């Protein structure tokens, strides 16, 4: 197969246009901001339920509220762990890529 140097340089110059980063729409949150918001929500849920459980153990909150807070915490932690596992898995998949 005959690959000409001019053809190669032409294709290479085309890839640059494709790989150029697209300017981000400032109204749309970036992936980093979305992750930050999700982590903030997770932390808020954890803090809220911690306060509820502490109040429940001290006898200031009813047991239903304690169980509800614990269930919310369980779901939040499960979600966080599942997402983290997926992220780590994707990272390992990239590392295993034959170069």
């Amino acid at each position, binding site marked *: 197969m005959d690959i000409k140097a001019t053809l190669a340089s032409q294709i290479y110059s085309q890839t640059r246009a494709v790989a150029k980063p697209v300017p981000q729409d400032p109204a749309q949150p970036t992936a980093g901001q979305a992750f930050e918001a999700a982590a903030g929500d997770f932390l808020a849920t954890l803090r809220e339920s911690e306060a509820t459980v502490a109040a429940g153990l001290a006898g200031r909150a009813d047991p239903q509220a304690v169980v*509800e807070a614990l*269930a919310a915490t369980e779901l939040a932690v499960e*979600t966080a762990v*599942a*997402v983290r596992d997926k992220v780590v898995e994707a990272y390992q998949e990239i590392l295993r890529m034959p170069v």
Partner: protein
Amino acid sequence: MNEMMRTMAASASGMAAQAARIRLGSENIANADTPGYHRKTVSFEQAFDAARDARAVVTGPVQLDRNELARTYDPTNPLAGKDGYVEGSDVDLLVEIADAREANRSYEANLKMFDQARQMASSLLDLIRR
């Protein structure tokens, strides 16, 4: 706050309302022999929990039943009136037990819904965990 969380908040409020109801029932039974005691009743009201964006149920103000008190003729009793009648309480044990049983069933129903929502959210997460 997603739908599952709202479901669990509503179920928890239902359980709290039934707990308040059964507390009043046990107070009524405890005072069944108290002279002049009117049984306490409570109404359930729909409420909107703005902090958690959830529709819930709350117990309304506690009200006293306006039934006639049970009157027994006992002139030797120190609490007897001028006509010799003693006023007891208007608590009917049968009504209280039936009310407690109904509160128990409603509590169980709310608990089932709570568990159902939790299991649904949990099994959804199982999908991405594989």
